[in-house]
């Protein structure tokens, strides 16, 4: 295992022995094909991301938000990528790599269904059989994505153990993999898991910042003062940060899900948030040492967030490292503010964001928005100090998948800017 497998003390390869050869084979393939472009792998990857995925994604000035926050706000539009989120960058990269490695079968876990959907699309595109593990609870609440996976020809294997959510799905996929390593590749869904996954997934997503860094310079002649992205596992986050890491003048904000509260309930082992960078501590989860939400015994806590894609108790080891180094600032936004930001971006800019994405915009509002009852407005100077004159923010995905959740959650709350949805009560129909 090379020292590259670590980010400081984070990372590593904490996996059952049976998986180590697969991990080593993958590390070798990663170095050859991804890092050294052997057999033109990266060329093919980029071609397919252009033609199938739709890259490059635009960097768009957000006219209304720029006025609202008195700073130039630029949106990196990953929501326009095929499938509706940044996820395809990684899924297509890994499925293509699996083909280069001679694998004949793809497996993946999924929680909200976004990674499963992207993987199923990539597998159909590259004509390789695909099975997705998904907890049965998640299957029931994410039926549109289940349908999308089935429609793309993927098998969806319901996971009935435990609570039937993402954690169990990951464990089940690892179990499948340790039986089938010889012909199967496991497409992990974020910058988590054992090396080489965190580095490799980041590399596939780093095209986001590669493009954005060039686009913002074309548009403004300069680097941005700050860059924001939401963080669940952290793949869109590191994709958005990677090429800015060496630009010391650029502040990097990773916006986690604050859920309903930042405090944890040790008694029930539940953290009503998913803010592992802000509130978690070092531990080993799903193959890597990183920051995790755990009780004092080291048992992993159930995380919670209104956004299923941020609802994970761990985070990528590289992000944990960059936070410790002071390079990335971890911040968080609670469920209410995320929903409010969801409605704001939809109404003001005509972009319906994923609930995950909405968290990043919630942070923008918090530091630069007008005063509210609960919060004084930052003075102009302070907020300019905080965000600077130009901000790039990653729109990691679109919100079509979240419509039902948002209708329900908006109904449960008292949000200032929620549209009147009485039309849905007046007229019957399928949704809700």
């Amino acid at each position, binding site marked *: 295992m090379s020292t590259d497998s670590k980010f400081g003390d984070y990372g590593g390869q904490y996996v059952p*022995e*049976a998986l180590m050869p697969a991990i080593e084979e993958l590390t070798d393939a990663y170095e050859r094909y991804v890092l050294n472009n052997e057999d033109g792998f990266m060329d093919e990857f980029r071609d397919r991301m252009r033609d199938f995925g739709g890259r490059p994604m635009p960097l768009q000035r957000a006219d209304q938000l720029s006025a609202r926050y008195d700073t130039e706000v630029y949106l990196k539009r990953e929501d326009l990528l095929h499938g509706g989120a940044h996820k395809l960058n990684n899924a297509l990269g890994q499925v293509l790599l699996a083909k280069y490695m001679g694998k004949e079968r793809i497996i993946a876990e999924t929680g909200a269904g976004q990674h499963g959907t992207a993987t199923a699309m990539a597998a159909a595109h590259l004509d390789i059989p695909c099975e997705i593990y998904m907890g049965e609870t998640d299957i029931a609440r994410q039926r549109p994505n289940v349908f999308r996976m089935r429609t793309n020809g993927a098998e969806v294997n319901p996971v009935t153990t435990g609570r039937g959510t993402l954690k169990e799905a990951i464990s089940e996929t690892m*179990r499948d993999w340790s*039986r089938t*390593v010889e012909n199967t590749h496991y497409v992990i869904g974020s910058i988590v898991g054992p090396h080489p996954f965190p580095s490799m997934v980041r590399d596939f997503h780093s095209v986001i910042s590669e493009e954005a860094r060039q686009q913002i310079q074309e548009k403004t002649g300069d680097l941005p003062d700050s860059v924001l992205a939401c963080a669940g596992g952290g793949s869109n986050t590191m994709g958005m940060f990677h090429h800015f890491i060496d630009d010391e003048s650029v502040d990097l904000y990773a916006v986690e899900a604050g859920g309903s509260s930042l405090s944890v309930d040790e008694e029930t082992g539940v953290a009503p948030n998913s803010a592992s960078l802000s509130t978690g501590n070092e*531990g080993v989860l799903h193959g890597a040492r990183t920051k995790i939400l755990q009780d004092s*015994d*080291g048992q992993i806590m159930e995380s919670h967030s209104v956004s299923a894609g941020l609802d994970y108790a761990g985070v990528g080891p590289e992000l944990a490292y960059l936070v410790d180094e002071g390079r990335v600032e971890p911040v968080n936004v609670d469920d209410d503010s995320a929903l409010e930001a969801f409605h704001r971006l939809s109404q003001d800019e005509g972009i319906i964001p994923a609930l995950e994405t909405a968290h990043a915009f919630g942070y923008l509002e918090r530091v630069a928005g007008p005063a509210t009852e609960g919060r004084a407005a930052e003075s102009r100077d302070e907020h300019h100090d905080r965000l600077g004159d130009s901000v790039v923010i990653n729109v990691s995905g679109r919100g079509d998948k979240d419509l039902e959740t948002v209708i329900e959650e908006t109904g449960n709350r008292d949000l200032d800017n929620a549209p009147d949805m009485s039309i849905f009560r007046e007229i019957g129909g399928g949704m809700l």
Partner: protein
Amino acid sequence: MSLEAAFADEPAFVPYIAAGDPSYEASLEYVEALARGGADAIELGLPFSEPIAEGTTIQEAIVRALEGGMTPQRYLEFVSEVDADVPLVCMTYYNLIYQYGESDGPRSFVEAAAEAGIEGFVVPDLPAEEAGPLRNACDEFGLDLVFIVAPTTEGERLETMKAQVSGYVYVQARLGTTGARDDVSDHTERSLARIADWDVPKAVGFGIKTGEHAERIVRAGADGIIVGSALVDIVAEGHENGDSTATVADRLEEKARELKQGALAGAAVEQ
């Protein structure tokens, strides 16, 4: 008794059971029943919330144990309460070992485990490359550190393990996670050949279900057999049917006897 000593005279039978499954008291009796049935050492699972190396059977045992209130602290009490003359091996995941006590790192837990009466560790998600701190703590407190060798483990990785292993080596008989199977893999012989020159006993596990399996494994050259799911199945069934602890304990003892006899039979023929 040291772990290696458990393999000294005859092929060893090493059962696995999750501490606290389905309750503290019941599993205490089960451990003792296994000892009565002929166990030479017992791998005693300390349940972790994300058991990525386990099959469904053991995963569900772990869920039951967690729901029954098992924690690392209670586990140590459990260990000190076990009334059986067999060495106990703590099988768990690294995060629990790492988090225990005031300061991060494995030392606190190893110290406490040694005090409670644990003889060694098996940590399925801790590769030999990362095992340094745990190996050091084990050395400090005189405990063994068992590694798992998979059918696919080769080359440099084998050497790294060989350099650190003690007590016994856990030979995984086939690919996949734990779980009782009906066949006995022919990987066993080849796996044993690869580690023939290791100077620790070789215990073979994964998928052993019957005395006959045990016999064949020992005949293939194993110094011992490790059996988990086949025993956990008995616990699960008893739990589901609402059988009394005593009934389940009897069944475990009987199964243990069958497996131990199988192992002995394998050795007898071989000689």
